[in-house]
């Protein structure tokens, strides 16, 4: 999993029925010191993220497993909110 910051939100009325009721956010992937790395992507949210939150997300085929009991068409899923990062200098 990787760290990211929530930078935006996407609204889409017409979407795959497996995505109904699910929130989609724009996230900026970040390194361990919270510097931006790579391009921003659209992520499915499972934890009630809000803009500017630091989150961790799972990518690839595993992202389809982010919601219990079903598989969703997602390749980037937010699976947790970061309260704090402790990092030894």
């Amino acid at each position, binding site marked *: 999993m990787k760290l990211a910051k929530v*930078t*935006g*939100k*996407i*609204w*889409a*009325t*017409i*979407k*795959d*029925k*497996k*995505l109904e009721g699910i929130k*989609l956010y*724009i996230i900026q992937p970040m390194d361990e010191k919270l510097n931006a790395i790579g*391009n*921003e*992507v*659209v*992520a*499915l949210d499972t934890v009630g993220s809000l*803009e500017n939150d630091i989150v961790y997300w799972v990518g*690839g*085929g595993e*992202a*389809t497993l982010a919601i219990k009991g079903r*598989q*969703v*068409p*997602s*390749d*980037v899923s937010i699976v947790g909110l970061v309260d704090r990062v402790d990092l030894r200098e």
Partner: protein
Amino acid sequence: MELAKVEGTIVSTAKTNRLKGYKLLLINLVEPDLTPTKNFLVAVDSVGAGKDEIVIVVRGSSARQAAELSKVPTDASIVGIVDTIEHLGKTKYQKNG
């Protein structure tokens, strides 16, 4: 997932059986402010997207998880048509607006 703009349709008569009946679109990945990248993809459309619309595309093995595409050989599927993009506190895109 990524954002993309629908640039065109792919017309294809000879295609593998499992792709028959599915609409293929040529899409260009875009940034949240709609700046186009030079990254074009052929994507299976399962939501009825049309030209110039901004869409959400899922890539890789996850693309097969779209509701109608479980047995379709695709690594890029359009799973949503974007109405609004809000980014860094500003509205960057509003459909028909």
